[in-house]
């Protein structure tokens, strides 16, 4: 499928018309779009709360879960969700300071990666399975996968909209929020669960190791462009969408991995914005 004889057309409409004749490309665009929206939104809160390391940790904890469920014949997405959300809940319940405990989180994620490695080596088809979990394989997503992704995303987005203002305030000024009687530990736990679930679905696109490309870099770029949270979220989503769509489009014509293109596009935009703000 990667050895496409067509050339990347200047006429985008014609290009998309030919791309959507392939069902796997349709699924990839559907899932990629949903995931970019979720990752762009949750990513802003990741930047605000400075929990990007936790985001990475959930991805690697999720790797163990995905590899484990592949081993016993369950859809890896469920393993991802289960493992990363359990990890998220534990880290959140350890208290607000735990989210900044780099050494503890790092130790846990190293162990999780090791565990994942064991599961993968026990699993016969290990090379391709490991590869797709680690680096993403959005072109292989089934219609069932798209459905699960959509359901999980709707739950995340509804929950995120509900707790949006309290989480924003608690992230910006935790002590005052606490003094005002807000349950900052509970809010932190809810956020960690949302983050873990978002990371789990985003892994399908970016893979475990490239999770920053969707969950961190677009939002980090956006906060350099605007001081308004709502605008920053919109820009973050836009960057994630542009990167995902362009990545899929280019990967249809070029024999290289989608996640490579996505990472390169978000990184290029990030560099550009940093360069502009540095020049100012």
């Amino acid at each position: 499928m990667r050895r496409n004889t067509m050339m990347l057309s200047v006429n985008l409409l014609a290009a998309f018309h030919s791309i959507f004749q392939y069902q796997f490309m349709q699924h990839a665009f559907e899932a990629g779009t949903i995931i970019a929206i979720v990752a762009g939104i949750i990513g802003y809160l990741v930047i605000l709360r400075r929990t990007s390391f936790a985001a990475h940790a959930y991805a690697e904890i999720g790797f163990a879960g995905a590899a484990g469920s592949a081993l016993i014949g369950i859809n890896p997405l469920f393993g991802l969700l289960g493992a990363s959300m359990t990890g998220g809940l534990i880290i959140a319940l350890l208290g607000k300071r735990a989210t900044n405990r780099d050494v503890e989180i790092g130790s846990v994620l190293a162990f999780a990666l090791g565990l994942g490695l064991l599961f993968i080596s026990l699993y016969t088809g290990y090379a391709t399975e490991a590869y797709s979990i680690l680096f993403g394989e959005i072109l292989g997503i089934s219609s069932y996968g798209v459905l699960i992704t959509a359901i999980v995303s709707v739950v995340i987005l509804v929950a995120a909209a509900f707790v949006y203002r309290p989480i924003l305030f608690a992230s910006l000024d935790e002590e005052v929020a606490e003094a005002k009687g807000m349950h900052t530990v509970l809010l932190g736990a809810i956020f960690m669960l949302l983050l873990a679930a978002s990371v789990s679905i985003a892994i399908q696109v970016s893979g475990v190791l490239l999770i920053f490309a969707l969950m961190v870099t677009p939002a980090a770029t956006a906060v350099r462009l605007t001081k308004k949270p709502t605008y920053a979220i919109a820009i973050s989503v836009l960057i994630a969408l542009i990167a995902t769509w362009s990545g899929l489009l280019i990967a249809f014509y070029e024999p290289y991995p989608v996640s490579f293109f996505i990472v390169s596009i978000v990184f290029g935009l990030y560099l550009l914005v940093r360069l502009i703000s540095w020049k100012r």
Partner: protein
Amino acid sequence: MIIMNTKVIKTDMREDVVKAKNLTVGYKDKKIWQSANFEVKRGEFVAVIGPNGAGKTTMFRMLLGLQEPVSGDLKVFGEPPMRGNQRIGYVPQRHTIDNETNIECIELVHLAISGHKWGIGLTSSKEKELAYKALKDVGAAELAHKSLASLSGGELQRIFLAEALVSNPEMLLLDEPLSNLDIKRASDLVSLIDSVVQSRKVTTFLVAHDINPLIQFLDKVIYIANGKVATGTPKEVLTSKKLSELYGTHVEVLHDSMGHILIHSVYGMNEQPPDEEEHHDVER
């Protein structure tokens, strides 16, 4: 002196906003300070003074209901302290904002009245107006759309003050707003706080290391040191006799022509506030 006397009489007519009786705080095995008695009336401007680690922030945590007293009785607005008391505005001790917090100031002030509400809340122009008014009240209207990360220490403290005032509190707790500010900025901020105290009749507690920038505005001093608490008007508390009792060593209070004081121990005081010496040089 005559003016002072009439003020005392007026003060006594007002209700007690905070009343502490035989109050001891800290932990069961480690008491921070004990047997404190003080009353603060509506509209009073009170400084909480003492060396590092004396338990000044702990007093705020108790007033906010975030920490329980070990023993004794504490009443805030006639009731035991409770967490989430909407009648209190709080500015915690904070030196800087992360330079990646690129969010405009009005957003923080706005969240102080809307942050407890569920949902996205896109239609809240009335709250935005209140936030803008709070910024105006502290002379920071022109900072409304500036990034928090771009502000100086003095500007940040104004924003934090607006954040505390926006919910129209009856009591303000300000934890070390003057630290990290130079003398000019500190005195500007104190004048601003005093005008807020006067115009809104809001009872204000302000934690500081150095009493001098505040001294002319204060109704009361709560001086915490050596596990003990002394309270009264600045004239009552800031005497050689009272502070010698408090520190348990001979302490002299020296005065300059401007009414500033220097607390000085003949034998070398271990728990001398770190800012004191610096101030000493400047005052001379």
